[in-house]
């Protein structure tokens, strides 16, 4: 198990993060954007867990941190969706690129 070097996990996390970022910045549908953000946060969690197991100085706090991160991410998703619904009520769309009334 420990044969898998930490760098592998990190790379995975990085890739995941980038995918998330890409999604967040390109998808038109706001729901997908929110999901992409979740992806980014989860990439972080992989990092944390990986570090807490295979890091130079392994410690449990990493996993604790991960737990907090998950919780917060959930909350954030919830809030995000709630707001999206409110917006949908008024604007009848979930396309993020149509939310451009506010600009100079």
């Amino acid at each position: 198990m420990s044969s898998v070097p930490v760098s592998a996990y990190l790379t995975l996390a990085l890739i995941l993060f980038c995918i998330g970022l890409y999604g967040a910045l390109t998808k038109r549908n706001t729901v997908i954007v929110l999901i992409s953000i979740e992806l980014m946060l989860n990439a972080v969690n992989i990092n944390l867990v990986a570090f807490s197991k295979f890091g130079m100085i392994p410690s449990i706090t990493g996993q604790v941190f991960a737990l907090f991160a998950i919780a917060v991410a959930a909350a954030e998703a919830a809030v995000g969706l709630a707001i999206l619904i409110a917006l949908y009520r008024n604007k009848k769309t979930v396309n993020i690129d149509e939310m451009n009334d506010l600009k100079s």
Partner: protein
Amino acid sequence: MDVDTLLSFEWGAMAPEFIILGVATILSIVDLFAPKHLDRKIFGWIGFAGILLALASLINLVGLEPISILYDTFRLDGFAKAFKILLLIGAALVMLLALSYKPKEGMEEYKGEFYYLLLAGLLGAMMMASSGDLITLFVGLELLSLSSYILAGIRKKHLPSNESAMKYVVNGGIATAFTLFGMSYVYGLTGTTNLIEMTNVLPTLANAQYIYILGIAFFMIFVGLSFKLATAPFHMWAPDVYQGAPTPVTAFLSVVSKTAGFVILIRILLTVFGNAFAGNSGVAKMTNFLVGMQDYIAVLAAATMIIGNVVALRQRNIKRMFAYSSIAHAGYLLVAVTAMSSFMYDALWFYLGAYLFMNVGAFAVIQLLTQHTDNEDIGAFAGLYKRAPWLALAMGVFILSLAGIPGTAGFIGKLNIFIGALASDPAHYVLASIMIATTVISYFYYFGILTQMFFRPAAAEEADGGKIRMPIGLGVALVICVVATIVFGLFPNIALDFFHTNFEGFSDFLQ
């Protein structure tokens, strides 16, 4: 952990947080069960009282030695106290604004949430101020963020409000992800999330690669946090959100949230990165990691100041304009951060304080003028001097202070930053010059408002509907802000001495 260890902690150190938490909880529960027809305004007053109470208890704590409880996750050192005072005052003033905020539609039924979400956000900010651990920092940050997301969108029927909230959430999420990702690397390098422990581990980082990773982590965290500060490159959400959000929320974002951002920034910079070395060989081994980063921060600061002030020139919407202005001010503050001179702390603290008063004051006036008619065009100020001389004078004071004219707190704050930037070695002549130059540019739009208020005749509908009646809460806030702006402008040492005597320049920052 068992009960007596739990009891062994000096919970008194958390008194202010507990008060806020308590009030918030109570309000939320009462809001649930209280009859619909009950005017939720009373909640606001309760919340206000709670904040004052928290402030009192905090003042009461000021004298104490630094306390650290919950296994160093919660610290009450000079730094925490000093900035919590600002946060509380800011929140109190914002609460006063919120109390007298009456937009045309889409607000009334959520008044209750409004108030305790405000408190929740404040709580998060306070946690950030005195957390000694990345986790608590992060949690505090998120608490603040989440509640401000909702606050921004609290006018459910008001499309701009929704949109601004949405934008805020999306950007905020990305920012959070950046920050967190950076933090995860830091954790990976140090194997701990506790800031104090990190300070012991980081200096031992030998491997150059690790230091590079640390650098990358630094940038991710910095960019992530620059979302909260509304500084380049993560500033662009600010104008839209500020414009769409209800005015009190805008004030909250530009004052409390920004302050919190700087608090966490300083915490992390000085505890985590301030103790690493720029390299593992030769000179780099001697030089502090942050010294290596100064140039990058300087560039960001310069960019922020220029963007903020230059783009503000073209704004007609008053709230947008103030969004850019607050971006610019964040830039000024970054100058102090860049310099990292012995003046950094008091410069930051004083300037944030001054900015708090003048900006909340300005937003108070804006709210008063714009809430009836949702007309937020700068023209709304036309002929204000004729319609309400005192209001115009008050706004004049705030504007002058924001522009950094002598006799106001804003000037002293800028002075303090300059001294820091120029006294440090190497002195940042260029940065200081950019700061002053952009200040002059800012005259254009600041004095544009003055021109509207004092030179231009009032537009027809304002002219006849001229009488502006001043709600009590707002009036109080205005008076406080005006007085503070002028007093701290003429006798800044009232504040500065208080700072130096009570917080010893944060000498206790690291133990």
